[in-house]
């Protein structure tokens, strides 16, 4: 289950980055990623500069490099296919240590790897400096459809409740001698999943009842108003704006 008070991704702190309003940070990360993605892949030095920029933000947020790198491992399965590209792509080929590789494949792999890694690093910094419920407030503030924000906030609230229910069902199955090895047991697992769905659905109905009883009429009441001053926006947007300068240089040089 969840460890301590906050979510595992969050790293408690009081840095200037932690203190920025969540919607500024969200907007900054989104703009940064868009800028990075639109940088020409041949401008390799630009990506190095982006990495330096992110490093500076992590430094201000007092996130240790080891923590950051460990969190970034999440990227590995997603970029695995990038490693294959130099081997399978067509076109001009070069010899690297006796292995024949495709030039366009190498560029493609570099493109995916560099942009992906920068995007993941930016997201990890965002997640470790912003609490989950703050992120939700930020999304709400950025006018994401309220229904999506509500769904996300219920996922946070009920994720653990449903995992716990699943665990109890597993224990009940095993207590009656069920062993989930082999394809023949999949039927039982499927039925458990169905039962879990029905239970969650019924819980949803009861929660809705409880919400209506407390005056819910289709939209969540505003409890915390998040506001940002010009200075806070300026500080948050410093990252994507410097990235934009790098990007423009990358296109002109």
């Amino acid at each position: 289950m969840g460890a301590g008070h906050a979510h595992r991704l969050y790293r408690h702190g009081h840095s200037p980055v932690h203190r920025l309003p969540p919607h500024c940070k969200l907007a900054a990360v989104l703009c940064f990623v868009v800028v990075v993605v639109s940088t020409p892949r041949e401008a390799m030095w630009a990506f190095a500069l982006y990495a330096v920029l992110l490093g500076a933000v992590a430094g201000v947020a007092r996130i240790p490099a080891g923590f950051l790198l460990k969190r970034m491992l999440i990227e590995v399965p997603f970029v695995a296919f990038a490693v294959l590209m130099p081997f399978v792509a067509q076109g001009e080929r070069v010899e690297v240590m006796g292995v024949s590789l495709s030039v366009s494949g190498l560029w493609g792999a570099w493109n995916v790897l560099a942009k992906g890694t920068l995007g993941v690093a930016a997201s990890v910094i965002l997640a470790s400096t912003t609490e989950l419920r703050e992120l939700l407030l930020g999304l709400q503030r950025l006018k994401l459809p309220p229904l999506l924000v509500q769904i996300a906030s219920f996922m946070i609230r009920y994720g653990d409740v449903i995992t716990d229910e699943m665990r109890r069902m597993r224990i009940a199955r095993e207590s009656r001698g069920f062993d989930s090895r082999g394809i023949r047991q999949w039927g039982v697992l499927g039925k458990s999943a169905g039962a879990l769905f029905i239970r969650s659905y019924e819980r949803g109905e009861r929660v809705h009842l409880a919400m209506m009883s407390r005056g819910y009429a289709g939209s969540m009441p505003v409890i915390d108003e998040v506001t940002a001053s010009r200075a806070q926006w300026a500080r948050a947007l410093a990252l994507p704006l410097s990235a934009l300068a790098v990007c423009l240089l990358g296109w002109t040089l």
Partner: protein
Amino acid sequence: MDAVTASLDVSGLAYAYPDGHQALFGVDLVIGRGERVALLGPNGAGKTTLVLHLNGILTAGSGSVTVAGLPVAREHLAEIRRRVGIVFQDPDDQLFMPSVREDVAFGPAASGLRGPELEARVEKALGQVGMAEYVDRPPHHLSFGQRRRVAVATVLAMEPEILVLDEPSSNLDPASRRELAEILRSLDVTVLMVTHDLPYALEMCPRALVLSEGVIVADGPTAELLCDEGLMRAHRLELPFGFDPRSVDTRS
């Protein structure tokens, strides 16, 4: 107690579910301001159906429900839901926000309260149930007893006319039961407690109603009803082994 000042006045309430199953056959009851009343009844007696009528989740087939003089009707549902605070049986259903503070703030915020007033309301409600220091916790990191207390606070924050508790003692260990009893006794609010925990009803409520097969079959001092063996047996209400209501002093 006249009908105008009563916290809750239900008269001739009948209801049948859309599938035709009739759950209530003309329920009459009046609860005066500040009373603590237990609603007893076997499973399937219609207790939950009755509770859902009190704040207009279900609409009466015939008869009427009035809360502090205001009839339960579509045009003032918002005010009715503010006046009737229902604490549901499973606190995981009741506490649906990511943190205790937001959950307690939900009701008052839905009725338009903002800023420092809202904060004060949350603080007061959590203080009343002794959970003020847990304000920033997510509900799933609290013990069951703590969650039940926060569930009570979510409703108290709306400053209700009447507090309706559905099986408040279920799943609580004896210490949590006692703590909840102390909290409920300290509140200056009308309480309707739906339960089949008879000792708890005797401990908490001077007056009790028995609902059976969709009608109120008895209304009187809790101790008297529990001692009426014929009545109890007729409505599948059984005292726990070894419990004698005559041996309990409830005057204190």
